[in-house]
């Protein structure tokens, strides 16, 4: 197979389940790239905020740090794969979805409580709403993968 041909070798499989029956490698790796980016971005942002301006907006900055931790855990779970990795990612991404919806709503209702932006303020508007799209994509992928390998899908709460 011409591994290093200029435009890449053709693949026949768009990404089925891994050998261990865990998540498909391809789309999951795209999510790893996205979550890794946000882990880096949110982590760096929280680090700077907590180190230099913590007293200005402690709630917002602690939320930034919390978001960073959630992204890091989700990245690790997706990267690891397998049953445990899937469960880790599922938990983290669920928390992420609740977080972005809750923080997004509160930041609109009570602007005074959020004097400075977090990743999740206004549903992630400062980041092109990617923080809102990411957990939806993540949950869709995890759900689809669960169906693919015949795992029981967690009850759908809508």
């Amino acid at each position, binding site marked *: 197979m011409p591994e*290093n*041909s*200029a*435009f*890449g*070798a*053709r*693949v*026949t*499989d*768009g*990404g089925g389940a891994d050998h261990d029956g865990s998540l*498909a*490698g*391809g*789309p999951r*790796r*795209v999510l*790893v*790239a*996205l979550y*890794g*980016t946000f882990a*880096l*971005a949110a982590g*760096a*942002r929280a*680090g*700077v905020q907590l*180190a*230099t301006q913590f007293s200005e907006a402690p709630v917002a900055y602690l939320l930034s740090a919390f978001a960073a931790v959630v992204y890091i855990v989700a990245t690790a779970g997706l990267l690891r794969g397998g049953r445990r990795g899937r469960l880790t990612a599922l938990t983290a991404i669920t928390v992420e979805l609740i977080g972005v919806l809750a923080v997004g709503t509160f930041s609109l209702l009570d602007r005074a409580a959020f004097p400075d932006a977090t990743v999740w303020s206004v549903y992630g508007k400062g980041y092109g709403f990617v923080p809102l799209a990411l957990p939806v994509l993540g949950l869709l992928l995890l759900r689809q993968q669960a169906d693919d390998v015949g795992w029981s899908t967690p009850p759908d709460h809508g």
Partner: protein
Amino acid sequence: MEGAPENDGHARPPLPGVRPVTTPLVIAISIVAVALALLGLAATLASRRIGLVHLVGAAVLEVVLLAQAAVAVLTLTRGYRPAELATFLAYLAGVLLVPIAGALLARTEPSRWAGTVIAVAGVVVAIMSWRLLQLWEAVRA
């Protein structure tokens, strides 16, 4: 120089003759980054793995980013200070990791999604370089 009166509200005006992270440089970075992203998406759409062209693209992007970082650090050592120095440095160092991480993640991905991984890295670099420009030009009033 040191005792010059401040008449434009800038505590530290940019040094004349040395302008790193300038708009033309950021445009050049963006063009390489977006081209890399399009090539990556093309590979995914064509059901192909990434090839040499993607790795070379990521390498070119990294070289341009390193050049930008070198000139930025040089200017910082000469006294220029953007308002949010810590954030600027975080972006300056962070953006260097993106093409490398993207290439490593994509290289070991055997499916057609490797191209999408590279595309994500390209888009992230393009966005970060514009934010970097904003941070560079913001001077404490």
